[in-house]
């Protein structure tokens, strides 16, 4: 698993690639920590993620909650169909918004 970060205005974008198994979830937690600590608005692009289990979902969930506590917001975008299904089953589409494209996600964070 890899994370590439970039920014657009005050929005941090983290593009994740690879499979988020329990081992990768530990790395994800470490990699997200500075972003969650510094950013108010975080867009997680999952276009290159073909697998995520509950260990990875939990790290995204906690990152979103930490951001929210500081008045920030986390959104996810560009989910592959199977990953999207997992998000829906897990209820992530309710507390944390997911968008089909990064442009839509950015627009929502700007709004």
């Amino acid at each position: 698993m890899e994370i590439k970060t970039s920014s657009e205005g005050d929005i941090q974008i983290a593009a994740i690639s690879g499979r988020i198994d329990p081992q990768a979830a530990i790395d994800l937690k470490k990699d997200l920590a500075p972003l969650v600590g510094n950013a108010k608005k975080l867009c997680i692009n999952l276009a290159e993620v073909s697998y995520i289990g509950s260990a990875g979902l939990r790290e995204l969930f906690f990152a979103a909650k930490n951001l929210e506590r500081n008045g920030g917001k986390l959104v996810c975008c560009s989910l592959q169909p199977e990953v999207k299904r997992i998000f829906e089953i897990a209820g992530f589409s309710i507390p944390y918004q997911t968008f089909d494209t990064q442009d839509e996600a950015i627009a929502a964070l700007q709004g």
Partner: protein
Amino acid sequence: MPKSGRQPQRRLDRARPPALDVGMAAATLIQEIPNESDALIDLMEEVRRFCEEQELPGDAEYAAILAVEEIVNNTIKYGCRDGRRARIRLELAVNEDGLELVLEDDAIPFNPLRDAPEPEALHGGAPTKAGGLGIFLVRSLMDEAAYEAKNGGNRLLLRKSLARKNT
């Protein structure tokens, strides 16, 4: 990176009778691993490779890998919390109509279908504990699940029907 002594033994046995009793040729993957996180990652990769070899649809491959992650991870984290060294055995059988996973271990007996907590994430609140989400995902992706306490350990059976593109 090679992990000597930790690689699960892999066996493909195409001569076994179909596990789902549908009269089609079946393939079976049998693996046994110790209760170690590295071994789980290797096992997930083996399951992924096996599913690709069998040309399973994406949703079935995902369900098989996720089931292994969730069930085995729970066994490693909670089923061995008394410090025991457990063996975890996976038997994954596929044929034209479905896949069947049997996970057996000699860890602390625990029926996840009956006793796993309800995941808090579903309610949109801040989760205060980690449990429950994994088994909930497994049950959602599988069509059938059955548990039995066996030989002082656990046996979990999971089944999923396949919707092949050309059928």
